[in-house]
């Protein structure tokens, strides 16, 4: 029972992070390898807002999430906009470089020590007993709820929202979308903003649950296989992929070797790339973009 809860929590973490990869890739065909760092930045934003609104922790979280939305938009406007129309590889490497830069800056500003924003906000991370003898921490439960909420609203937004439809159109054919009067730069900026927002939500909740240090970016990278297994341009796929990766990771750690934790997602990734490179739910695109 505890195993099932662990899988659910890990899957929720991966899913919340993976939808950021999916959003940016689906709209602009750029793989954002700085997503882990952006997510960590969101968590550090919480440290900043926690100092401002120390008595109301929901306010602090909302402020941090708002800041990270802004960060994502700014990243697009000042950096990635220059890379539109360049080779895809160049764009991907730009995100890698951005990740390196962010990591350096974050250590400079907040030091490399582990920090506990939950303490700064004065929230206790109580453990909730579930039927069946399993336990789940308060923030983990909140994380699962958030993931469900984010996926629900994102799916509805992409299906019915005016900007959501624009995003899908831009993803399908930038040229036609632009000719129909869709402002591509605005759509891309929105995608980056939303992606950073969801990523930092994950980062914030993780930091509240288990503290915050430099290893968080690795979790961000480990969520990437989840996105790819499900198909890089499918939100539902990201959800399923996260479940698969999380289940494989938890079960292998439990029954085989705890050291496997670092590689399991990538093993699943390799297996998937060999069998079905475009993922479970992804559209089978011409893989000829570089």
């Amino acid at each position: 029972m505890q195993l099932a809860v662990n899988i659910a929590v890990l899957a929720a973490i991966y899913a919340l992070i993976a939808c950021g990869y999916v959003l940016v890739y689906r709209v602009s065909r750029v793989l954002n390898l700085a997503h882990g760092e952006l997510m960590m930045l969101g968590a550090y934003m919480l440290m900043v807002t926690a100092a401002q609104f120390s008595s109301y922790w929901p306010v602090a979280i909302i402020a941090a999430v708002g800041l990270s939305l802004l960060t994502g938009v700014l990243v697009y406007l000042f950096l990635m906009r220059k890379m539109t129309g360049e080779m895809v590889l160049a764009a991907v490497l730009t995100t890698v470089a951005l990740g390196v830069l962010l990591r350096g800056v974050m250590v400079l500003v907040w030091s490399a020590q582990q920090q506990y924003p939950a303490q700064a906000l004065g929230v206790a991370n109580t453990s909730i007993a579930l039927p069946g003898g399993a336990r789940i921490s308060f923030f983990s439960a909140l994380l699962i709820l958030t993931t469900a909420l984010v996926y629900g609203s994102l799916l509805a937004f992409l299906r019915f929202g005016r900007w959501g439809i624009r995003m899908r159109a831009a993803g399908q054919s930038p040229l036609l979308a632009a000719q129909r009067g869709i402002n591509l730069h605005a759509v891309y900026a929105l995608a980056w903003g939303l992606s950073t927002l969801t990523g930092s939500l994950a980062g914030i909740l993780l930091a509240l649950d288990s503290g915050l240090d430099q290893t968080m970016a690795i979790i961000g990278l480990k969520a990437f296989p989840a996105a790819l297994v499900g198909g890089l341009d499918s939100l539902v796929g990201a959800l399923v992929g996260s479940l698969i990766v999380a289940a494989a990771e938890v079960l292998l750690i439990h029954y085989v070797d705890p050291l496997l934790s670092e590689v399991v997602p990538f093993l699943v990734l390799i297996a998937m790339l060999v069998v079905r490179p475009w993922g479970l739910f992804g559209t089978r695109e011409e893989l000829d973009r570089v």
Partner: protein
Amino acid sequence: MSRRPRASGYFRTGYAQDLKLVETRTERWSLGAFVVALLAFPFFASAFQLDLANQVFLASIGALALMLLTGYAGQISLGHAGLLAAGAFTAGILFKEVNAPIWVTLPAAAVVGALLGVVFGLPSLRLRGLYLAVSTLALHFLVVYLGGEYENKRGFSTGILIDAPTFGGWTISGGRTWYFILGTFAAATLLICLNLLRSGTGRAWAAIHAKETVAEALGIGVAAHKLLAFVVSSALTAVAGALFAYYRGFVSVEAFSLFLTIQYVAMIIIGGMGSLLGAILGAVFVTLFPYAIEAAIGALPGAQRYAGLLFAVNYAAFGVVMILFLVLEPLGLVGVWKRVQSYFLLWPFKHRPMSGSRR
């Protein structure tokens, strides 16, 4: 490879002249002077400068290998650190388990590298671009995990110590000896790359890079040549890894993080894609960059305060430089060099005459 004749016109009258690596008298003299300077360098340099030069040599072997794969054959790899780790661990494990001498471990590293090259290259038969990059990234994690597993299982959890290698009763140690050995290896790698690129194989790679379908139609075995590119590049990289292990006398998985891969990719980007000179320039730049930052910070007032933050400053500055090159100078250092060169060649004019009129 479009090699523009570097003499003032096209004077080649035979195939032998076409194959010459050094064409004009000026080139011959400047190359000679460069070699003499390289040979004389260790007798004037301090131990620290020698160490820097050795690191540059090691990095250039790896960068040349990656350039061959990415810059010429057009196959993207984000698993370079994994291959370096494979070479280093081959040398380390053979040394620890069977006490193998260096003339066994280096070829063994090359063989392991070549085999891994097949493994890394197999996805390239099905995948292109982004997906290929991702698959090599995944393999990097796998190789590093296996290395870490070996360290843990055998009780070398802090890393494997390797004694200075002996070759025919002569122990290789000291910065100056290493300088000549690593320099020879780097020069040999450069020669191998130069010669490969002007052979049929190199032209096949260029064709695959330009357009796979057309290459296939021209009768080039695309699959075989892609695998070959991976095999050659990985073998060279693994040798670089093994040399790194011997030079440092120490192997540990921590040295082969994702950041190392990023550094090598940065070398070929900052140097300039599709140019061997670029690979070397990039290797020099990326290797010396952290030391330049350190020196710059040391010159600031209150330097001790920042000492603990040095690596963070390095990270940030490295990211900035990489972004600047990607956004502002996609041709890299070679692009800058070419522009300076043509400025002086064309002076007092600004632009090259229309292409075609000059050949």
